[in-house]
């Protein structure tokens, strides 16, 4: 029993408290950062062997940092996030720590620098407790594509956690950390958040620097927080946002960042999605109940048509596989990571053997598809075509957000799959991203919040999408619904 020296059982509520409440207790001396870290470590100790949420736990380091931050609190010099315990997805670089991207090809890799998002949290005295399991390079929707085995759903361990930020979602779900930093290329924060009954926010493309995020598809990738409390999502987002001079796509001009006034409280949902044949009945019912709740709060809720539903996923997969084939060419067995032990006849042979040995099947498939759609004969038919459709989708979606303040949908069409249910057929796996990819294709912010449980007691998620840089308004609406 690690925490018996605390006089009253406040530690039982640590994960149920918002950071702002924890901070009050810390500042009043009723709780210490060491208490908090010990609590989360005890949860990891109790559950991680089964759930496999963390690939590595920085126990000693986190406790040492906690003791240091406790001193800073006493002396009044602590940062704004003192004692906030965070877990980081294995796709983010953290100086002098391993980042494997869920892949054997980076096994042994230690980063020489930290992702901006992580560094900014550390600079405010947040405490990093460990590195979280994910699908290899973020490519997957179930966490089963991790080279280190899947993270399991704490609600029911026969079911997946979702992906690719599966470990990050489960870590919050099972109270192993306060906030997780995940990444989202096509739904990888929101989908596991929905499967695990927590909240997850994918920021606008261009709000958070991608510096230190191991790239999968650079025009889609974004870093965002996952947590139990919306206030904590907002808090972490405010710290990780903004230009750092390392990612030229980060927008810093106030002209774009300004908050748009909410006009008429209008909300749209896409008819083709709400009526989609793949949508599980329980989810549909809960979704329409949420729409009724919105109406009762004075929102006008409109069903709208979206002519590109069938083109969403193909657009996403053409472009992301193309970008992945280019981004993953850096893993060549020369400068870092794995190199084959088998004798190679020349350099190209070494590249091929290294990559064949260390990449998983899904990663190879996406590299192959991406290489194909970028090859000279097919470039226009696939890659350029998808870039054109992407413009249509983006323009149409933003058009909807001119007439409406928000676009809502279920986060996923079903609750968490059984382990192995989707792994045999890659296409079935891809279809699971239907409701989430639109935000990435259009570069918009989106959030998933809990929407109750289905008849099997598995969590469901409700998604809100907003116009670019309207995270604040999006979080306000989310707060009304939980």
């Amino acid at each position, binding site marked *: 029993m690690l925490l018996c020296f605390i006089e009253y059982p406040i530690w039982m509520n640590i994960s149920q408290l918002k950071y702002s409440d924890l901070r009050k207790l810390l500042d009043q001396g009723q709780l210490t950062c060491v208490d908090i870290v010990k609590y989360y470590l005890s949860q990891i100790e109790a559950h991680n062997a089964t759930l496999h949420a963390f690939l590595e736990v920085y126990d000693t380091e986190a406790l040492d940092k906690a003791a240091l931050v406790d001193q800073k609190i006493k002396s009044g010099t602590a940062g704004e996030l003192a004692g906030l315990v965070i877990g980081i997805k294995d796709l983010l670089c953290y100086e002098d720590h391993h980042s494997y991207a869920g892949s054997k090809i980076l096994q042994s890799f230690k980063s020489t620098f930290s992702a901006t998002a992580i560094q900014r949290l550390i600079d405010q005295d947040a405490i990093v407790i460990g590195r979280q399991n994910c699908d290899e390079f973020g490519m997957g929707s179930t966490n089963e594509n991790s080279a280190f085995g899947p993270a399991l759903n704490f609600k029911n361990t026969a079911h997946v956690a979702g992906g690719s930020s599966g470990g990050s979602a489960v870590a919050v779900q099972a109270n192993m950390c306060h906030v997780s930093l995940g990444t989202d290329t096509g739904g990888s924060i929101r989908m596991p958040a929905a499967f695990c009954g927590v909240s997850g926010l994918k920021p606008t493309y*261009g709000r958070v620097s991608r510096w230190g995020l191991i790239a999968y598809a650079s025009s889609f990738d974004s870093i965002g927080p996952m947590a139990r409390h919306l206030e904590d999502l907002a808090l972490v987002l405010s710290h990780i946002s903004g230009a750092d001079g390392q990612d030229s*796509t980060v927008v810093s001009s106030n002209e774009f960042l300004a908050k748009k006034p909410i006009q008429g409280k209008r909300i749209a949902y896409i008819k083709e999605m709400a009526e989609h044949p793949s949508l599980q009945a329980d989810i549909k019912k809960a979704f329409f109940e949420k729409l009724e709740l919105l109406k009762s709060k004075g929102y006008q809720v409109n069903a709208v048509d979206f002519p590109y539903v069938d083109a969403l996923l193909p657009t996403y*997969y053409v472009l992301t596989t193309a970008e992945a084939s280019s981004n993953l060419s850096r893993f060549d067995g020369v*400068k870092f990571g794995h190199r084959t032990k088998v004798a190679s006849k020349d350099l190209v042979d070494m590249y091929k053997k290294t990559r064949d040995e260390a*990449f998983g099947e899904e990663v190879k498939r996406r590299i192959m*598809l991406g290489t194909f759609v970028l*090859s000279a004969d097919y470039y226009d038919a696939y890659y350029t075509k998808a870039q054109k459709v992407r413009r249509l989708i983006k323009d149409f979606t933003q058009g909807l957000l001119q007439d409406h303040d928000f676009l809502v949908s279920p986060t996923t069409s079903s609750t968490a799959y059984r382990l192995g249910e989707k792994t045999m057929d890659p296409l079935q796996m891809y279809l699971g991203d239907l409701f989430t990819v639109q935000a990435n294709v259009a570069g918009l912010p989106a959030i998933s919040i809990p929407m109750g449980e289905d008849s099997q007691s598995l969590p469901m998620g409700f998604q809100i999408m907003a116009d670019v840089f309207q995270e604040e308004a999006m979080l306000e609406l989310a707060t009304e619904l939980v």
Partner: protein
Amino acid sequence: MKVNKEDVIKIAHLARLELKEEKIQDMQDSINKVLDWMEALNAVDTSSVEPLVHMTPAINHFRDDQAKAMLDRQHALNLGPDTNESYFKVPQVIE
């Protein structure tokens, strides 16, 4: 669009992957399935649409051209699977 076995081998070479003989058929089948599904894009009329390349309104950010110490040689070499005191080593390239 369908790819055949030779196409798969050629793509694998371009992607610097070496597929084992017994894996080629599976890869061919799954690629064909996905390519079939991607045909949905052809149903969208894009005749007067420009490709979308940049996702944000951000334009070039210039910084001052100042020399800064970045990753030093020793730290970089420490990451490599096969190095000597100055270089990353690779199989012989020049005969």
